[in-house]
């Protein structure tokens, strides 16, 4: 998050977002009503909250001129509730003000000046935090003596650490930013930097802490009053009303229950506002992505696949919908894969390679969704199967090797456990059978000392070793298809080669087909039979490896080839493709590559370009392919 710009931007946009949160709005309404009542208390047509009338004690609900009845001293309960809300609100307001001002000051000074002062302040704060919070408040009240003002001070003091810590953390983060450095270099005084540059930027943070702590502070001051350590009689205060009312719990429960209900409403309202504010002010909490993949949009048309195909994908489209934006991550992708065939999918970052891999597995993270197309695996349409059937195929018939073996293993479970799990789920093996087979798999992927390594935790293995484990996991159930998503990107070069050799050998041995996703054309030519080139979510060229290398037909493919280094040709000049891929929510009409293409003409930008045959088993999405001339590497 860029706090600097954020602080300036949030009022208008933040308010709109806050208003769209129904719960937060109802909280705001609730608190507003209570605040207005509390402020207007002296002018409301209420009975006197302090007038004791001993002949009118404990009148029930609905008594004449006492709608909510009276308390043990004959005072009007409604009036006392309103005045009590006034007291509680005032106390909470001042307590939070004191805590926020002092805590922020400590945090600002400590975070900005650093050094011994910072160390001293923060150690003191740590000691305060080592106390159970209410007990520290009790100790302070014990020392100062009971009373509403002392209770408020005690609650304020025990809340200072929360403000100080958060503000200091933010200041440390901000102090590294350019605008602070710039202010310092321009010769501004410390005070000027602190109050003009830093203070406005920590305000959202302070508001967040206030919104989390205000509710607690009201509850805790009410608690001290409840114990008789805060507001003293006859002050109308919600906490002490509850405290004195509890003696009459069995005879007149409303005397104690009603003040508690008002506290509940008040604090719930404040917490609702707080949650809403936090959603607005803290962008980290606003993750859109849900982990659970959304089911594909279903459509009933059935299609037939070519008979010899293991996998046949037709017009597959996967979109990500975020608010009003729709990202066309994958559009109109068609491909065929024969049993045992090895297909490479290449393209730049953001070309849709990974989304294609995840779409085939049914694991597109929300808000992504397959919106159209068919994925026929041996005649079954994965895009229309039940989630349960898809799960059965995953890891059994269709396996996955992820990009980053560092994060793909559960760090808290041994690799053996995770490997055995893959076996037991699909094969119904017992644990010991699974373990035997897992040992065999680890040996197949050339992990030495498999018997020891099987009980290792992921962090105890190197990156290459972990990727071997991932491959073992993929092979566990002799899958018909392995989808490998840049399996070597996270590894160093020597390990890369070994892993590729292993993958090729094992695919041949197990007769598995392979879809190998990569951005590296050089890498895939050594491994695969056919190549699919993706650009901005569309297939732009499809050919066998030999054809693609000898006569690439799409300008983009040529660009990719031109910028991939070749071993043994250090003198070769690499020519990067200029420009950036288009934004996926605002694709250019016509050819998506046209803005970066040296060969683009007006006609390329006017109409959608179709994928068309261009020679034997060779398709291209370019209307000028014939005019490019022969390829000279």
């Amino acid at each position, binding site marked *: 998050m860029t706090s600097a710009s954020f602080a300036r931007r949030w009022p208008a946009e933040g308010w709109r977002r806050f208003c769209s949160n129904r719960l937060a709005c109802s909280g705001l309404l609730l608190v507003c009503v209570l605040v207005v009542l509390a402020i207007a208390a002296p002018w409301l047509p209420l009975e006197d909250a302090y007038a004791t009338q001993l002949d009118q004690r404990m009148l029930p609900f609905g008594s004449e001129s006492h709608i909510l009845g009276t308390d043990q001293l004959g005072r009007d309960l409604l009036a006392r509730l309103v005045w009590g809300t006034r007291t509680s609100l005032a106390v909470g307001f001042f307590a939070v003000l004191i805590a926020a001002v002092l805590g922020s000051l400590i945090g600002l000074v400590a975070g900005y000046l650093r050094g011994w002062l910072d160390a001293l302040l923060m150690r003191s704060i740590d000691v305060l935090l080592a106390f159970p*919070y209410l007990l520290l408040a009790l100790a302070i*009240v014990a020392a100062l003596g009971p009373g509403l003002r002392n209770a408020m001070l005690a609650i304020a003091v025990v809340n200072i650490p929360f403000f100080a810590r958060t503000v200091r953390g933010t200041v440390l983060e901000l102090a590294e930013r350019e605008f602070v450095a710039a202010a310092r270099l321009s010769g501004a005084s410390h005070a000027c930097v602190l109050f003009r540059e830093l203070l406005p930027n920590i305000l959202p943070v302070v508001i967040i802490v206030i919104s989390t702590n205000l509710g607690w502070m009201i509850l805790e001051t009410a608690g001290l009053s409840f114990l008789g350590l805060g507001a003293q009689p006859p002050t109308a205060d919600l906490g002490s009303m509850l405290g004195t009312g*509890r003696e009459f719990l069995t005879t007149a429960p409303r005397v104690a229950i009603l003040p508690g209900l008002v506290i509940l409403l008040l604090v719930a309202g404040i917490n609702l506002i707080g949650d809403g504010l936090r959603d607005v002010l803290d962008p980290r909490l606003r993750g859109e992505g849900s982990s659970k993949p959304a089911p594909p949009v279903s459509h009933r048309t059935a299609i037939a696949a070519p008979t010899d195909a293991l996998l046949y994908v037709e017009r597959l489209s996967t979109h990500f919908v975020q608010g009003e934006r729709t990202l066309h991550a994958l559009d109109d992708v068609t491909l065929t894969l024969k049993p045992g065939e090895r297909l490479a999918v290449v393209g730049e970052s953001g070309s849709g390679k990974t989304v294609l891999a995840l779409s085939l597995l049914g694991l597109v993270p929300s808000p992504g969704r397959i919106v159209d197309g068919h994925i026929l695996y041996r005649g079954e349409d994965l895009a229309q199967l039940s989630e349960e059937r898809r799960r059965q195929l995953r890891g059994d018939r269709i396996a996955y090797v992820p990009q980053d073996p560092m994060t793909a293993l559960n760090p808290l479970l041994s690799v053996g456990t995770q490997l055995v799990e893959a076996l037991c789920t699909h094969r119904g093996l017992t644990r010991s059978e699974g373990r035997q087979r897992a040992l065999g798999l680890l040996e197949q992927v050339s992990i030495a000392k498999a018997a020891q390594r099987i009980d290792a935790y992921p962090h105890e293995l190197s990156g290459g070793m972990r990727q071997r484990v991932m491959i073992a996991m993929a092979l566990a159930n002799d899958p018909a298809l392995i989808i490998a998503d840049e399996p070597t990107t996270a590894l160093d070069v020597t390990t890369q080669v070994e892993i590729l050799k292993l993958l090729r050998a094992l695919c041949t041995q197990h007769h598995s087909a392979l879809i190998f996703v990569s951005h590296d054309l050089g890498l895939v030519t050594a491994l695969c039979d056919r190549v699919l080139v993706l650009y901005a979510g569309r297939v732009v060229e499809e050919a066998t490896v030999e054809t693609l290398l000898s006569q690439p037909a799409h300008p983009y493919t040529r660009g990719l080839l031109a910028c991939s280094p070749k071993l043994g040709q250090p003198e070769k000049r690499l020519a990067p493709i200029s420009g950036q891929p288009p934004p996926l929510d605002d694709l250019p009409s016509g050819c998506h590559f046209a803005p970066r293409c040296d060969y683009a003409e007006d006609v390329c930008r006017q109409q959608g370009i179709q994928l068309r045959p261009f020679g034997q088993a060779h398709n291209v999405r370019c209307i000028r392919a014939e005019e490019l001339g022969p390829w000279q590497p």
Partner: protein
Amino acid sequence: MTRYILRRLIQLIPVLFGISLVVFLIMALLPGDPALAILGPYATPEALASLRAELGLEQPLWKRFVIWLGNVLQGDLGRSITLQRPVVDEIAERIGPTLLLAATALTLATVLGLAAGAIAAAHRRGWQDRVLTLVVLLGISMPQFWLALLLILGFAVWLGWLPVSGMFSAYGGGDFADLLRHLVLPASSLAVVVTGVIARLSRTAMLEELSQDYVRMARARGLTERKVVYKHAFVNMLAKMVPVIGLQAGFLLGGAVYIESVFQWPGIGRMLVDAIASRDLMLVQGGVLVMASSYVLVNLVADVVQHRLDPRIGLE
């Protein structure tokens, strides 16, 4: 493991020192004359002078702290004026009930809170999530002493299922079942707020785990959704939540003050309230010191548990 615990124990020393310093300073710097507070306004000047000498009030502050700390380290927390007995004896009697109450509440809160958080996260934006979020919001917004009163009214007064207060029945009780019956209401009312806090934090933690790569990989292995969520994501969430749960023990030890007062539970919390009301400062000092130290120890235990759960911690 033992080395880790030892190292953590050594790290505790400055924290405990800081705690005792704060407790001492709060009591020592309070306005007014403790001797006068103890003996009352009608005491003779001689009596006041001799009590001051006895309490060491004539000495400089640092010397008083050293003497006091030395006594504390030898297990002498001073003498309670109102109860006329050593503070340590009183605390020794009352620490058991408080710990029992707090531990029961913490167990309840942990189990319910983690379950609620995990379920809400697994069904993000579903009806389960909405219902749980609302219930949790109510839970953390209500005064726990008020909830305690409601529970007494409902389950003890109206339904008559459970006792109104105390730890054992005066007649015919005293066995474990009797203790359990007395424990239900105070432990549940004490647990509510912390359950809510744990549920909120574990929901957030769980959502973060569910977006990790290893969860996607677990799905790609074809594990059932139940296993993915409640085995893989859950253990990771648990490991991250354990220290957070330890911190919540502070709320429980504080909340015990209210709950013990409402339920007449014979613990340290109620002792503290009485001691503050009667200005028995030695008792307050001792009680706060003991509670704060137990809190620190609970957090140590939490760190050790996390260390056990997560093989990566403490290797560096």
